[in-house]
């Protein structure tokens, strides 16, 4: 097995392959995939396709295949969560001060909370790749675009190399192809950067995706308050502080990330919401209480194993 990690999309990108001889190809393909996602979906780049879409709001435009896929994923996430994960939170996120690459976000006055105008206002025909973004609607595909990048990259790398592949983009993980014996061992913690050295628990994944959403990273001060990047589209503010970390396993990383983000927004109702969808999940409360849903391995067994 071999792996490489580097910075991309404002976080850590990592690729692991079961055949070390295929690592160089895997890294090259991951770079290509991440560059393409950044060029299509980054709201921090004036030359990105999504920025150009904002520039022509109110007009019907044709978008490229990658942005079509990213919009499809984002709007599907919104529909399947009843708007708990909504790509039209762009203005709300900016009002909270996250209006540039996170490394450059600084303290400042807190603007008024701006509820998301609603995903259903985006007119989109994916078959023809046509979009009409109403004036005043700003998209933030952050919640699903990174997960989509993990899905796409892992598939592409596995297809090209034929070996078992794991792609991890800031804790959004996708595995493809034959896993190592016993499955890919994944440490779960509050912070993706030190989850391996300070794991809360460890799980094994042989297929699909796993994602963690949380409020312990990407936090900043604004108007004397601590805010973070997960926004409740219904209010435009940060969700009520119930869960600090939610980890979900799904068929794809997009599904896992959609569910974990929705759970943070949902608060108390999240465990039953996840269970109704048969999604294995681990939720850690802001006070440290741990709740798991059916399908998630028993915590005691994991602690013994780790």
């Amino acid at each position, binding site marked *: 097995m071999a*792996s490489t990690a580097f910075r991309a999309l404002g976080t*850590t990108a*990592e690729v*692991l392959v079961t055949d070390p001889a295929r690592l160089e190809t895997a890294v090259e393909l991951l770079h290509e995939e991440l560059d393409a996602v950044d060029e299509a979906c980054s709201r921090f780049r004036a030359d990105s396709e999504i920025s150009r879409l904002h520039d022509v709001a109110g007009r019907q435009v044709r978008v490229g295949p990658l942005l079509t896929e990213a*919009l*499809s994923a984002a709007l599907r996430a919104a*529909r*399947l*969560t009843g708007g708990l994960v909504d790509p039209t939170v762009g203005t709300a996120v900016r009002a909270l001060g996250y209006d540039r690459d996170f490394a450059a976000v600084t303290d400042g006055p807190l603007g008024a909370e701006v509820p998301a105008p609603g995903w259903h206002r985006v007119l*989109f*025909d994916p*078959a023809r790749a046509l979009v009409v973004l109403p004036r005043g609607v700003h998209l933030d595909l952050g919640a699903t675009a990174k997960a989509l990048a993990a*899905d796409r990259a892992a*598939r592409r790398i596995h297809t090209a190399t034929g070996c078992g592949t*794991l792609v*991890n983009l*800031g*804790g*959004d993980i996708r595995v493809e192809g034959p896993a*190592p014996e*016993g*499955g890919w*061992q*994944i*440490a*779960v*913690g*509050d*912070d*993706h*950067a*030190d*989850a*391996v050295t300070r794991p809360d628990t*460890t*799980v*094994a*994944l*042989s*297929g*699909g995706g796993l994602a*963690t959403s*949380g409020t312990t*990273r990407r936090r900043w001060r604004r108007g004397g308050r601590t805010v973070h990047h997960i926004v409740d589209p219904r209010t435009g503010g940060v969700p009520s502080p119930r869960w600090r*970390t939610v980890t979900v*396993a*799904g*068929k*794809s990383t*997009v*599904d896992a990330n*959609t569910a974990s983000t929705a759970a943070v927004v949902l608060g108390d109702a999240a465990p039953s919401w996840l269970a109704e*969808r*048969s*999604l*294995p999940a681990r939720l850690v409360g802001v006070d440290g209480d741990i709740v798991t849903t059916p*399908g998630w*391995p*028993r915590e005691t067994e994991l602690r013994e194993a*780790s």
Partner: protein
Amino acid sequence: MDPETTARTARREHGRRKAALATAAAAVLGAAAVGAIGFGLSSANAADDTTQTTTTDSGSTSSQDQLQSSDSGVDSGSGSAHTGSGAS
């Protein structure tokens, strides 16, 4: 026609015009709504692997589309971690 008949005819004509106008307006609004809904709903035809399994043969989005768990599930960890997941 006497003035009363003329007035009745005029009122009936006015009523018909109003009804026709309302019908036409409803038709326009309905068509717009159908167009918008049709246009918007097509957004659900995501190209990711999850949706492909839940999209009907006609290409329209199935009401069965939902967030899905992994076929292979998630198991207890049994060794040192290859990588980690947490908030970013």
